[in-house]
C-alpha cells in the first residue's frame, strides 16, 4: 500500500470510528440534508455537528454544496462501497473482538466477584 492509500485508509477509519458520524453518514446516504437539519438530530452544538460533517467530507464519504445560506451534504455511495471503506468497516468488527478478548484476559487478573 502506498503512502496515499495509507492516508486514505486512516482518514476513512477515523471517519467511521465515531457513532455520530456513522449516523450522519447513514442520513446523508439516504438523501441530501442541510447541515442545520442534521444538527437538529443530535444533542450537541451546531459547530460540533459541522466538525463531524467536515471529517466525513475529508474522508471522501460525503460532499457538500452551498445553496443560499444553507450547506447541503450528501453521501457518496461509491466511496462507501469502496474496498477501502469496506476493509475499514471490517476492521471495526475485528477491533471489537480484540477489545473483548483483552477484557476477558484482564478479568483473569481480578479476584472473583
Amino acid at each position, binding site marked *: 500500500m502506498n503512502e496515499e492509500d495509507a492516508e486514505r485508509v486512516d482518514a476513512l477509519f477515523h471517519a467511521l470510528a465515531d457513532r455520530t458520524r456513522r449516523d450522519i453518514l447513514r442520513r446523508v446516504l*439516504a438523501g441530501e440534508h442541510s447541515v442545520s437539519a442534521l444538527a437538529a438530530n443530535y444533542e450537541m452544538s451546531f459547530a460540533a455537528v459541522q466538525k463531524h460533517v467536515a471529517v466525513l467530507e475529508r474522508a471522501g464519504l460525503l460532499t457538500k454544496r452551498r445553496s443560499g445560506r444553507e450547506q447541503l451534504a450528501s453521501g457518496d455511495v461509491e466511496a462507501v462501497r469502496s474496498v477501502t471503506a*469496506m476493509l475499514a468497516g471490517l476492521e*471495526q*468488527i*475485528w477491533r471489537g473482538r*480484540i477489545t473483548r*478478548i483483552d477484557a476477558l484476559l484482564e478479568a483473569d487478573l481480578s479476584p472473583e466477584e
Partner: protein
Amino acid sequence: MPVTDVHHDLDNLTLTITAQFAAPVERVWQIYADPRQLEKVWGPPTYPATVVDHDLTPGGRVTYYMTGPTGDRHAGYWLVTAVDEPNSLTFEDGFADLDFTPNPAMPVSRNVYTFTGYEGGTRATYTGVYESADALKKVLEMGIVEGSTLAINQIDTLLS
C-alpha cells in the same frame, strides 16, 4: 489499546490486525479452544454469540449463531483447516442457515490466526482474505447486525 498494527491490502482484499495481549500464548489459545469463552468475545453485547458445535481439529467445524435485540438469529460456521495448538489456527468462516447448513450463496473468508510469545505476553496476528469486493460487501452486510459498521444493505434498499 491492544491493537498494535493494522494492514489493509486493497489488491488482495486482505485485512491483517496485530494485537498484543497481556497473557501467555496458552491462555489466549484457551479462548478459542473453549466455546464458552469464544462466544464471549465473538459477538458484541448487542448481538451475543452462542457456539453450538466446537471441533477445533482439521476438518472439524465450529458453528455459532448470534442473537439480536429482537430475537433475530444469524448463523455462521468455521471449517477448521489447520491447527497448531497453541500457535496457530486456520479456518474458513462462512454463513449458514439456522440448522448450520452452509449457505453457498454467501462468501467464505480464509482466516489465519497466529499467537506468538512476545515481551511476556502474546502477539496475536489475525488475517482474513476475501474472495471479491462483493464478498466483502456481503460480510459487512452481516456485520451490520453488530451495529458497528455502515448499513451497506440499507444503501441498496434506498437506491432500488
